[in-house]
């Protein structure tokens, strides 16, 4: 195993350790969205997904 893989893995582990308390805080304290909020978010992400598929077909 080369040191680049080990370095990248340690970097990602550090990110997970750093993110974990922030993730827990966000999950506990974020306001809850209504069904309408989530539906509009899913619709936007679907449009982004379709656009990415269009880009993939272009290359």
């Amino acid at each position, binding site marked *: 195993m080369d*040191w*680049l*893989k080990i*370095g*990248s*893995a340690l*970097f*990602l*582990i*550090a*990110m*997970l350790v*750093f*993110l*974990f308390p*922030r*993730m827990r805080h*966000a*999950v*506990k*304290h*974020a*306001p*809850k*969205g209504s069904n309408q*909020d*989530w539906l*509009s*978010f899913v619709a*936007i*992400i679907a*449009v*982004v*997904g379709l*656009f*990415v598929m269009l*880009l*993939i077909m*272009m*290359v």
Partner: protein
Amino acid sequence: MNQYSNAVTSIPASALATNKLIRNSYLLLSMTLLFSGAAAAVGVFMHVSQGVALISNIAAIALLWFVLPRTANSAMGIPVLFGITGLFGLGLGPLLNHYLSVNPSIVMTALGGTGAIFLGLSAYALTTRKDFSFLAGFLMVGLFVVIGAALLNIFLAIPALFLAVNVAVIMIMSGFILFQTSSMINGGETNYIMATAGLFLSILNLFTALLQLLGAFNNND
């Protein structure tokens, strides 16, 4: 009549502050993107190795986590932000070199696609003024899971997982752009340096994920 004219001409101080925050953030974002692009060009021309790119990314993350939050409320915040974006730009060198040697049009398509997604999402959040703060938990869990999957794939090297991680990163970063833009409008973020750093990271991750996805589906690779 006097009441009517007052209602039309007086703009609440909070609206002025929000407009100033958005204007300053986008101005700083455009400058940091140009600077990061210049640093990436240096990385490409100097044929920066993957080891240097990794060290550059680690240094950028260390500045972002430990230095920027302490300097964001002072004049030192701007040079620190330029340092972060420059280091991230330099870290893009090997990835750009690889795809430029395979098919340069992939890089241009990824760049254009990232710009179109960012502008579209920002325009949506700015015009509708919707509050996307409810996404915070979902986005943080998604980011955590994606980093975990990327960590596993360093050792497993499964092509399908590589594609899934990049698709997930595009979706999560799109969510972050909506979340960050709406938090500038709705008062969740009041510091333009921190707002710029958040938007810059979303754009950078969106670009690299799109580039790798387009590269994976490119027939010449």
